[in-house]
């Protein structure tokens, strides 16, 4: 691996894995290249529209860097293989979309329970169920937080361009290694299939978080004894530590806990290690939120569409702020709570019928109204809908104790009398 960089314990990317250059590629392919640049050595995946191009891109370039792509028999197998690969010491990732994501939930929870660093790229599509495979959606956001059973926390970041698909895949691997938890790249079909310029810098300009390996004497190794940031050091199969890794609730030695000897702390640390480090993980892009009357909160592709909506609303003379959630989970509770006391209302455009909008409402504690601009999927918002929602939020009087579902043009046309679906 590359030399150590000053300050953080990050190292430089390995030149063999970085395809330095300027490309004109789609988001999926950019993410495949990003994975390689991040030092990912294993991708276990299963073809599913609209994410397969990422796996294909990685499969093509993987041999150059001694990495492996394996197409498992299904998504369950893929997720299990990824957790296994991580414990063999390599950085590993899987790539999927809606239905595959649901199939992976058991092994995501299993991975979270073992505090396994891995990255999951979800190119969201119209749902639920088979839904609209070839078109976009953002309705897996709450699933990324709550999809598996039991208590655990994840990190979720949402790119909105092929360049960010490359950059955020590296960011995702770094976060996964740093906090030993699942990191979800919640992209979508628009960003995945959008072709734009992508600049891949030289290897020495890319910082990689190496795996936090235990290097002390083998007999004193306690696999789940955390460092002060609540994240334990990891070991690898084959390093002679005779690891005992179990999905059962385990104590610091990794040994399963008898039901009567259960300590909440064994499981609680899985959530605390993210909540305590929230400020170091959360990344937002703010613009014009200081004196704004209405603040648009958005993420992923919707944040790009929202820019146009905000522009139109500002032309109508409304002071509009723009808060883009680069990291959706952990959710920026404090930031929303602070902005709620200053602004009149939040407007949340997202391609679903209300998910992050409920989180914004939770954190605004009634200090600001919340207007959701919904969209069923298989398409993106119309900027004018966002602008009208901002205007509606600006004019709405008094405290409205519910998330207001703004009626979009699409909803009005589809549900007016006499509308018939065309083939």
């Amino acid at each position, binding site marked *: 691996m590359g030399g150590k960089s000053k300050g953080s314990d990050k190292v430089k990317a390995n030149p063999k894995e970085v395809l330095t250059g300027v490309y004109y590629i789609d988001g999926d392919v950019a993410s495949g290249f990003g994975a390689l640049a991040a030092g990912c050595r294993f991708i276990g995946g299963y073809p599913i529209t609209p994410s397969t191009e990422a796996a294909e891109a990685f499969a093509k370039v993987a041999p150059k860097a001694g990495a492996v792509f394996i197409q498992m028999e299904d998504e369950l197998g893929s997720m299990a293989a990824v957790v296994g690969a991580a414990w063999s010491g390599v950085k590993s990732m899987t790539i999927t979309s809606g239905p595959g994501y649901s199939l992976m939930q058991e092994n995501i929870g299993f991975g979270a329970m073992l505090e396994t660093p891995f990255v999951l790229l979800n190119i969201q599509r119209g*749902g639920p169920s*088979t839904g609209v495979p070839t078109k976009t959606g953002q309705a897996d956001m709450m699933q990324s937080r*709550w999809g598996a059973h039991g208590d655990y926390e994840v990190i979720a970041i949402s790119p909105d361009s092929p360049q960010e698909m490359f950059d955020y895949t590296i960011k995702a691997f770094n976060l996964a290694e740093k906090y030993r938890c699942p990191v979800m790249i919640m992209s979508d079909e628009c960003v995945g299939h959008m072709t734009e310029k992508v600049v891949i810098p030289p290897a020495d300009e890319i910082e990689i978080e190496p795996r936090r390996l235990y290097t002390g004497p083998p007999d004193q190794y306690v696999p789940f004894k955390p460092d002060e940031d609540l994240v334990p050091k990891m070991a690898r199969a084959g390093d002679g530590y005779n690891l005992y890794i179990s999905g059962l609730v385990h104590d610091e030695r990794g040994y399963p806990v008898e039901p009567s000897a259960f300590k*909440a702390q064994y499981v*609680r640390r899985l959530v605390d290690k993210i909540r305590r480090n929230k400020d170091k993980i959360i990344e937002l892009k703010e613009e014009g939120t200081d004196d704004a009357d209405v603040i648009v909160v958005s993420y992923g592709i919707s944040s790009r569409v929202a820019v146009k909506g905000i522009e139109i609303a500002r032309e109508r003379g409304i002071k509009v702020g723009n808060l883009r959630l680069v990291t959706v989970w952990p959710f920026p509770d404090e930031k929303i709570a602070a902005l709620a006391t200053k602004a009149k209302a939040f407007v949340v455009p997202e391609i679903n019928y209300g998910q992050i909008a409920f989180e914004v409402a939770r954190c605004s504690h009634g200090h600001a109204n919340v207007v959701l601009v919904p969209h*069923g*999927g298989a398409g993106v918002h119309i900027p004018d809908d966002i602008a009208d929602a901002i205007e509606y939020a600006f004019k709405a009087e008094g405290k409205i104790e519910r998330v207001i579902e703004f009626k979009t043009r699409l909803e009005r046309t589809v549900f007016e009398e006499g509308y018939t679906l065309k083939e």
Partner: protein
Amino acid sequence: MKADPKGVLTGSHTLLGNHACAEGALAAGCRFLGIYPIVPALEVSQRYLERAPALDATFIQMEDEVSVLAAVLGASWTGKRAMTVTSGPGMSLMMEHLGLGVMLETPCVIVDVQMTGPGLGIPTRPAQGDIMQSRWGSHGDYEVIAFAPSSPQEMFDYTVKAFNMAERYRTPVAVMADEYVAHLEETVTIPPADQIVIEPRRYYNGPPGKYLPFKRDKDMVPPMVDIGQGYRFHVTGLTHDDRGYPIMFEECQEYNVHPLVRKIRDYADTIVEVQEARTEDAAIIVVSYGSTTRAALKAVEQARASGVKVGSLKLVTVWPFPEKRVAELAKQAKAFVVPEMNFGQIVNEVERCSYGEANVFFVPHGDKGVENTDDILAAINRAAHESAVKDGVIEGV
């Protein structure tokens, strides 16, 4: 319509929670149980199998939880009331077919006997860590109905309610039990069959050639038909129109998926069910569900005895969440105390729906698990002394 007497074991019995759940299913007319064995949900199938032959009820153990819910959905379309029982890990494996059940709008019941999670967790220890999963576990937009029983009697009653809701709204319904309630043995009184109201399946009775599997009635619920009646209908997990044919445009996604959400969200008032105790003059309200309610009610009594004005709001339906009632109570009360056997799930909903009108104290999953009356009591007392309303959830312990 009334329950089929053959399935109803009228009388009062001492039943294990899981056994009561099986009796509830049989009383509700369930004649198809598909399972994959998982601790702590095994006893439901043992009880069902004892009663099945006399009722010509069908049972199948499939090769995994993914296939079991698929089989349940298939059986439901043959006109049978179908159910599966599982626990955490199995629930996670069923998320894809929960989505298929939502999209095909297929009535069925999923009983989740929650264990301490995540991962393989502790199968023989209760928790309530799957609550948010039951709402958000599958991909895409949809709404669910979920009940949370606190006793073997409620394991019986809520399973009957679940089947009725599933048929009424043509949707999968979850019963979010847990290992404690499931393995508790208490008296369960089963009323005579003619006192058990059963929601009949809403069948299509128009001309055979004209049946459209997704043509919605006024309440957005489409009537059903059974396989083998000559309708030769088609249903698909793809976004579809009334005929069930896939049309994958924005308009059809709105036309198909928005009603999936609204047919439950718009009727939340009629679906939501809560049990309130002493909330009329309560300054502090303990919001609880499932087995935690047992400890919560004890804590409320003890606090009342020591002069604290506290009431209890028990969620019979966890989903849809009683948003309006919580918002109303937030104005009347000073604080909510939310004990849960997890690290913060329903407490988020209480925080959202109180809209800053009341403090929210959280009593997380502790070492003592279900018997945490004194933790709840401590939180109540802390809430009593807190005068100012602060934003955000305050850890009660």
